[in-house]
């Protein structure tokens, strides 16, 4: 009973949140809605006895990915909003039809056959140990691939975000890099050192020079 209620609540949350994601014009709201969706999905995973994945889902998606979305939204400021110009109506309609079609087909497909529920599994079904076992056994390649992928993602992200913008014309809007004089530490330090390492001030005339003036 609890199981069913939780399922229904989670699916309602998931679907409504997903709809909010695609229908809201404000990326900030969309992102927040997606978090709701993700948490509902994590609940599904719990219901499916995949404890580890549920936790991972929240940690990775809600904790990291969405933060990144929100940061980029903040970074873009007002420009992150949906462009106002709308697509032609037929495109929207076509999208609707296509999406609904695919969804309907699958739903129809899966519900016609009775899958029932799977076998009774032990508590260790979703435990991380099992996943580790799989990973380091059959799917070792995937594991290594993932680490490589992360490496590439990190590198790519840094490269993309830190690439200097092309030189821009004076009237071109919205460049980000503020050109600030870069100073070389060593030279400056030594100049500093030289300038401050004395007892009295050397500016202006000294007493002896003044008489000549």
């Amino acid at each position, binding site marked *: 009973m609890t199981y069913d209620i939780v399922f229904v609540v989670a699916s309602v949350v998931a679907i409504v949140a997903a709809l909010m994601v695609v229908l809201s014009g404000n990326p900030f709201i969309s992102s927040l809605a997606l978090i709701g969706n993700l948490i509902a999905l994590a609940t599904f995973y719990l219901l499916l006895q995949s404890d580890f994945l549920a936790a991972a889902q929240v940690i990775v998606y809600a904790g990291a990915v969405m933060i990144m979305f929100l940061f980029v939204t903040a970074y873009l400021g007002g420009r992150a909003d949906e462009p106002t110009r709308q697509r032609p109506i037929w495109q929207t309609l076509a999208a609707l039809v296509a999406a609904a079609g695919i969804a309907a087909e699958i739903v129809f497909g899966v519900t016609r056959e009775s899958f029932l529920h799977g076998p009774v599994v032990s508590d260790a079904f979703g435990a991380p140990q099992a996943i580790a076992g799989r990973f380091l056994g059959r799917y070792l390649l995937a594991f290594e691939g993932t680490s490589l992928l992360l490496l590439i993602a990190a590198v790519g992200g840094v490269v993309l975000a830190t690439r200097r913008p092309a030189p821009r014309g004076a009237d071109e809007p919205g460049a980000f890099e503020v050109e600030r004089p870069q100073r070389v*530490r060593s030279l400056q330090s030594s100049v500093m050192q030289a300038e401050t390492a004395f007892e009295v001030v050397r500016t202006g005339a000294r007493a002896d020079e003044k008489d000549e003036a």
Partner: protein
Amino acid sequence: MSTVERPPAAIQPLFTPARIPPGAPSKIDPPPGEDLITVNFGPVHPSTHGVLRLIVTIDGEVVVGLDADIGYVHTGFEKNFEQKTYWKGITYAPRIDYLAFFANELAFVGAVEKLIGLEVPERAQWIRTLFSELNRIHSHLVYLGTSAVEMGAMSVFFYCLRERDYVLDLFEMATGVRMHDRYPQFGGVAEDLPKGFYEECRKFCRMMPRRIDEYLDLLAGNPVWESRYRGIGTITPEAAIAMGLSGPNLRATGVPYDLRRTDPYLAYPEIDFDVVVGERGDAYDRFLCRTKEMYESVRIVEQCLDKMPSGPVMATDRKYVLPPRAELHTSMESLIHHFKLVTEGFRVPPGQVYYPVESARGEFGCYLVSDGGPKPWRAHFRAPSFVSLQVTAMMSVNRYVGDMIVVVGSLDGVMGEADR
């Protein structure tokens, strides 16, 4: 993006007079054409030392443009001085720089005394010296406490205020109030030191150095504190002089310019003390300079106690000095003098004078013009914080917002003095 740590530590544009950028040094505009955020820090902000308003343009955490706006406690002192007799003017003076109140009084009283050529008895000179050093300790304590609490080091703030209360106790004991004392009067000081003052003051002198040790233990040795202060707001000696810095701000750059030494007044020529100078001219040196100056001030106070001569504390020139109270009941002449001095005030020969003293913040000068009447024709004060706050922009731009707070704190500006 290069790998140079930006803004790098201990690096600051070198502002020698020739290299100070053309235009107004106190205002640095953000780079043009950028869609940057402008934030107001102040006037109602916890760490702008009162009501300094900094209009800051930030790019992320970095300050790229800064314009300071002052005047939020502009009090019209100079106009009020013109409206009041010289004697009443003494009560206005301490309120200019409310941390170094005694130095302000000294500057005003000294200027008037110089204008009229009034001799001050020796004992009064020593008493003034004593109190101006106690006052310096007071001011530096408040500086230390507030700048520590801005950095989140709360305990130092409380310890400093505890000691500040001891200083103010001494003030209250001798002058009757904790802060704005009007104790120096033309020709001397209002009253002689009270009984028991010496013992209390000696107790204080014995205690204080240990307390300063504690502050240094808490702050100077602390790597976090050092990382916040080292290399921030660095200024070269040339730039500091060109920008008119004085006091600990200037001495932190290594220039041993201290009016107590170079232009001695009061009893300072007879006192043995060291002028504390820094090396690099950064916020850390300013902090150290002030803190170590407290040791010197304690030394001076001790010497004052040791060497205090006896004698009168007030000049006897009846033209300018109120007659002693006892005489009022006996001598009709005194009573008439008293009457005249109180209602009309004394007349000061025409002329102009600039009288600087070394307040806790630097050269505090009082410029007076007299037209021969009983009120100053014009009084103008050279306020060290007013001058030193000009360098905020140069020191803060291209640095983090947090550094800007350090810069403002380490310049030790008192807005009452800056705005007058």
